[in-house]
């Protein structure tokens, strides 16, 4: 199976793909579907509803995610870079569109399309990775002028393109995704070659902004409350603190090896709210214990490791930064989500990639890894091989990479 987008970019996706990335992704998705079943079936059985319903829905989304993975594998990542301005405009429109629909639980996050709803903020994550990577990547002019550092101009551009989507999402309100954007931007600026002085200055600016946001009262009451409750859960044992307490109870009672798959009493009795979505890790922790929890963390570690390996392998500046961005999304979101369930971080409403029930996030993550696979499949070694096969001699950047 191969798709020839351009004569000089002939790539065989079947042989050029990263099997580890794909296999681990499928493992996590399958495991996620299993845990969704374990977290929902007993309550549905008691209510007399179909216990396989949420599992089936997630499976459909999973199929979509895998299709998107494949589709984005075929798309040359460099094309994405070229379309970055258009992607930016689309993202802004989608993020703004949520305010046209009825809020759910007081939050504007959804675009309702009849039977399904989509969350633009999920898709905004890979989109912002593309946009920011494009803004920060080395241009032809950099190469020509032998520029080594990161120009303030680019940093400024990145911050400008970050500002509007971040504010739209924060207004949603969705503090978690906003923080993901900030983290990703920071990582990209660093990876793009910012000097120590620039990093220090930006860090100071970030701290100042956070302080300003806290003081200005831009945060919604419940967001402030969550942070306060996180810092002192006993403030609100039945409200926001309840989630953290029950999550800790469930994970803690899993102990070393867990209570056994489908055998979690707290999970079955629905003690942890949102345990099939944001708090899916509690089902893992209770039923599979420390061993299961560490295995999940390890699998995510593998994904982040593969993404960074791809970032280091690709000789294209945009592709490398894109991979750092995607790795940031994954790594940070896993850290924040699991950290939240084990009482280390506040409740922010960030899902666990591939595992939490929810379509948009799954599709967006499939999309993200599809981009990674696309980068990997177009790494210098495969392109050389492909060209050799077609009898062409290498020209351009690939030859440069060899040198």
């Amino acid at each position, binding site marked *: 199976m191969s798709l020839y987008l351009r004569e000089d970019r002939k790539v065989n996706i079947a042989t050029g793909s990263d099997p580890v990335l794909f296999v681990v992704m499928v493992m996590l998705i399958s495991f996620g579907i299993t845990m969704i079943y374990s977290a929902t079936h007993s309550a549905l059985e008691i209510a007399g509803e179909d216990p396989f319903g949420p599992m089936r829905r997630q499976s459909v989304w999973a199929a979509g995610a895998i299709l998107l993975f494949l589709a984005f594998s075929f798309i040359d990542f460099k094309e994405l870079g070229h379309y970055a301005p258009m992607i930016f405009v689309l993202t802004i429109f989608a993020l703004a569109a949520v305010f046209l629909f009825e809020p759910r639980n007081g939050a504007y996050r959804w675009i309702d399309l009849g039977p399904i709803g989509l969350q633009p903020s999920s898709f905004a994550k890979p989109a912002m990775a593309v946009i920011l990577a494009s803004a920060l990547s080395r241009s032809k002019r950099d190469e020509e002028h032998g520029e080594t550092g990161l120009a303030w101009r680019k940093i400024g551009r990145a911050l400008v393109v970050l500002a509007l989507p971040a504010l739209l999402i924060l207004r949603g309100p969705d503090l978690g995704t906003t923080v993901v954007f900030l983290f990703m931007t920071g990582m990209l600026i660093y990876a793009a070659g910012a000097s120590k002085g620039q990093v220090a200055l930006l860090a100071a600016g970030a701290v100042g902004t956070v302080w300003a946001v806290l003081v200005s009262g831009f945060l919604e009451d419940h967001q402030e409350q969550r942070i306060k409750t996180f810092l002192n859960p006993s403030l609100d044992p039945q409200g926001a603190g309840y989630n953290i307490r029950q999550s800790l109870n469930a994970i803690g009672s899993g102990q070393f090896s867990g209570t056994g798959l489908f055998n979690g009493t707290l999970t079955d009795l629905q003690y942890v709210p949102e345990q099939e979505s944001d708090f899916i890790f509690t089902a893992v922790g209770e039923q599979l214990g420390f061993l299961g929890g560490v295995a999940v963390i390890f699998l995510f570690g593998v994904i982040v490791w593969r993404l960074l390996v791809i970032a280091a392998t690709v000789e294209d500046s945009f592709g490398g930064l894109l991979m*750092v961005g995607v790795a940031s999304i994954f790594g940070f979101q896993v850290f924040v989500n699991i950290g939240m369930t084990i009482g280390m971080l506040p409740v922010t409403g960030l899902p666990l990639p591939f595992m939490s029930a929810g379509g948009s996030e799954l599709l967006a993550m499939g999309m993200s890894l599809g981009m990674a696979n696309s980068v990997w499949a177009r790494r210098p070694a495969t392109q050389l091989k492909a060209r050799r096969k077609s009898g062409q001699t290498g020209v351009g950047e690939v030859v440069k990479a060899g040198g």
Partner: protein
Amino acid sequence: MTLRISTVGMVFMLMFGVLAARLWVVQVATGDVYAAESERQQLKPVRLVAARGEIIDANGVVIATVVRQPRIIVDPSFIGEEDLEQLTQEIAGLLDETSASDIRELFESARPNTVFPLKGLELTADDAYFILEHRGRFPGIDIEWTPVRSYPLDNIASHLLGYAAAPSEADLERNPELPTNGTVGKAGVERYYDELLQGNRGTTFFRIDPSGKVISLESKEASTPGATVQLNLDIDLQWIIQAALADGIVNSRLTEVDEDTGDASTASRGAVVVLNANSGAVVGMASFPDYTPQGFVDGFSTEDYAVLLETQAFNNLAIQGQYPPGSTFKAITYYSAWEEEVFAISAVDQSPTGVIHINSESRLDLPSLEDASQKQFFGHCPNVDADIHEAFIRSCNVYFWEIAANFWAGFKGTDSESAMQDHARNVGLGARTGIDLPFEKPGVIPDRELFTDWAETGDARLSSARLEAGALWNGGDLLNLSIGQGSAIATPLQMATAYAALSTGKLYEPHVVRRVMDHNGVVLEQYNPTLIRELELPPGFLTAFRNDMALVTQARRGTADGAFAGMDQLNRTGGKTGTADGASGKLPHAWFVGVTPIQAPEYVIAVVVEEGGSGGLIAAPIARAIMQYLLGEQVDPIIEDGLLSTLPPWLLDVDLEQVEAAAAGG
């Protein structure tokens, strides 16, 4: 850029490492804490009811027990929507009082998917058996038998037993451990020994979901029934006592008339205490009016309850009734005279006006108050030189006044001024006896110190006239005390205790309960007689006192001669009458404290009939009937067709051994 990517990788490695480390802390290092907390919040303990312990008499007769009362338990998982209508009709058909729609409501108010009891239905044992025999018609219905208190003997020993009922808010405040769905002892032995009778309530643990809905039964710790409490009470004797007391009160109404007003007696209250003279064991105790403790289980009718409240039927007059002891107190004056060797030696001058003067007023420093300085002279003391024996037998007030007058003359203002009161306290008067029953009253033995206290605290028992006169305590008060009048008051139990001490030389703490056994019969607690003190009686006192008590019932001139005449074993009886002035315009309280066998005392019987009239005529016959039973005689009726004559002959017939032998033979 590769270097920078490695740095980014290290950041993520660090973040994931922190996650794993924290996970280790939560799950492995402190996982057991979270596991315990999870288990605790999922398990809802429901305290069970423990069967209350039995109360039995000295011979093992059951006075209070538990019966298993049925109630309907519903398991909705067996009941289809189409069954419900049919089922509620079936249950309604069984219970006359409840309509099908009411039952339907009960069903619908319960949570689905959980087993629940149908509350508030009057289900008889027959109904329960019917359901159990026709299970096919009652799908999902089961019967649970709950232990419920039962008092099989109606009103017998009601005050001694007390009763158990649902705990009030005050009870729960006092002891939060009490079962809100169970009972707590409210009075009598039920209250005093409540902790032992309660037993240990088991607990059922239900697994619940976060909303508190019961998911499943997790485990059950069975209850341990309460301990069996065995009383010193002889229930056969108790039948006699209660019948004799009731008949005696009727006797007062039939025969006694107020000499001043001409009104017939309206006596309606009285009490009896029978103690073992050598141990303080309470072998019988009655108070009239009485009640049926079962009413607290089944519910009293509104009218019945109103009557019980109005007649203060729940008061145990044997320990709460405080009456002036009247002439029964003369035993204490008698005892004081022997102890102090102060007897009356002067002749008593009886004036033709009926007012007596003891020696000269000036010497006695009598109070100027009328009620204390002038005493009506009662006819039964002939104007002869009486000694203390004759004075006791005839209950001659004047003689005892003179003793008091001599005490006053000799001890006034000295450390021994309260010598008579000290002797009274020495035999247990003026303070609670310490009986194992709640709400005992202490009585009053007055002296200068007490009156001073009363004056300081503004106690209403001290009249304002006396306060104004500034004479808080004087000779007249001592004279009043010497014949058990004035401010002196005592409970029937106190008088029984005092007479037991004076006729045996030993003061015992009266005790209702003999032993406590667990539900397997293992003795947990054995109550041996508690000797409070041994009296150092003057030589010759015991013989003289017993002899003089014997002559009260046996000699023609004795004040109880009429009541005891004709008794087979008259020579084994003895005692002292009392006719104590109470409220003005009412008949006096009739007292009798008897001792039998008088030669070697075993039992002391204190009887009081409130506003019943003459002690010799009204109280003494009650004591006589009880003594007849105790001595194994045929019990003679007090009144015609009274309760005593309705009792089964084997109770009235003294020869219990014969009955027992017959029962054993049969």
